[in-house]
């Protein structure tokens, strides 16, 4: 992938990552109304629009926090497409209700679509990681939770009443287990863009 220049709208991403109320408010003011009217014109209501927007904002926060969000297209188009696709997915999930979607998918705005694809891949990966984490035994889950909250492994050992050497090894192996599951997971393979 070519390293495109970062778009000035990156300020919105930074603002989300820093929990900057003024920026968040301006996103609502400037970009959300369009999403709302789209959803209302496509079998949804305002409450559903509110939920979709909130989900996307949380996703962007997470991706920005993981330092994986560098905007190479205008925020407006990117944000709208993300919300729109999320909404269409929700409709699909409950499609037995017989919805009508007025659809013009042939937007050929490449940088925007590329950004949206990246963000959606990030979301899917996060969900996969979380699902695998849930598969771990209680011991592993607890140890990892502590290791990443407390940070000092000496303290973690103390808290769990075991030796430092043990927690270090166990942590490696717990993450190792996750690594192995994920390697085996086909979903992940198809997602990999590296």
């Amino acid at each position, binding site marked *: 992938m070519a390293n495109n220049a970062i778009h000035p709208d990156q300020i919105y991403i930074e603002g989300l990552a820093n929990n900057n109320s003024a920026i968040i408010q301006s996103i609502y003011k400037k970009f959300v109304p369009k999403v709302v009217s789209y959803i209302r014109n496509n079998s949804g209501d305002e409450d559903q629009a509110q939920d979709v927007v909130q989900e996307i904002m949380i996703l962007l*926060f997470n991706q920005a926090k993981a330092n994986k969000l560098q905007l190479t297209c205008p925020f407006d188009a990117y944000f709208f497409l993300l919300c729109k696709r999320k909404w269409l997915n929700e409709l699909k999930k409950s499609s037995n209700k017989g919805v009508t979607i007025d659809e013009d998918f042939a937007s050929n705005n490449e940088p925007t679509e590329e950004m949206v694809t990246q963000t959606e891949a990030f979301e899917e990966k996060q969900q996969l990681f979380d699902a695998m984490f849930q598969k771990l035994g209680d011991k592993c889950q607890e140890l990892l939770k502590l290791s*990443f909250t407390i940070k000092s492994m000496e303290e973690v050992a103390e808290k769990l009443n075991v030796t430092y050497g043990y927690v270090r090894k166990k942590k490696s*192996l717990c993450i190792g287990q996750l690594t192995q599951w994920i390697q085996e997971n086909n979903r992940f393979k198809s997602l*990999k863009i590296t």
Partner: protein
Amino acid sequence: MNEERYIVFDQYLQDELSAEEKVKFEKELSEDPELASAFETFKELNLHLENKFGNADEFDSFKENLKSISNAHFKASKPKVINFKPWIYLIAASVTVLIGLFLFNPNPNFEDFNQYENAYFTERGDVDKNLKQAEETFNAKKYKAAIPFFEAVLKEKKTPEIQYFYGISLLEANKIKDAEVVFNELKSGTSIYKNKAIWSLALSKLKQKDYKSCKEILLTIPSDYEDYDQVQELLKELD
């Protein structure tokens, strides 16, 4: 599971390998795509867990902030919209420059938010004199006078309802410390006065012009609180 592999991964990430081990490991990575891809995943997982657990507080406060902004936005979009003309902004902006931010965006007043429901403790034929007096003085907004009656009632029987109205009276009579003790007790309970108590704590901070704490407390009130409208209104004014 190839245990040794993951132990080395972690040591490498923690920068605990010797110079030689490091070179050896990096060479292996470059020659073995399977190993390299496992290491990539291992690294990503570390990042993911770091984000998930290490930044959990940050994430929670973002979510709360987002929720209140979102609620304010969607609520505001329904009723009347005041159409400001751009030149009014210009004037307002220059006024701001002249007089300072303070007047342009005045802080909310305690007096705008301290409306309470009336107390209805007694039924006809009820004979608890103190309770009756407490109710009457409270509803007449003679809060200072109501305090001793409430105290007498509470000595006999402590209920969250009486505690709540007692707390309000203390707050209104400027016995803020005592009021906060009462509200905090209700807050840690599970009665239906729990959220009202949290709201009252926020009002108490507002009264002391401690806007920061006020806002922090408001953000902890769940959105299903019956008077959430007021919470949002006050939050909006605090911003």
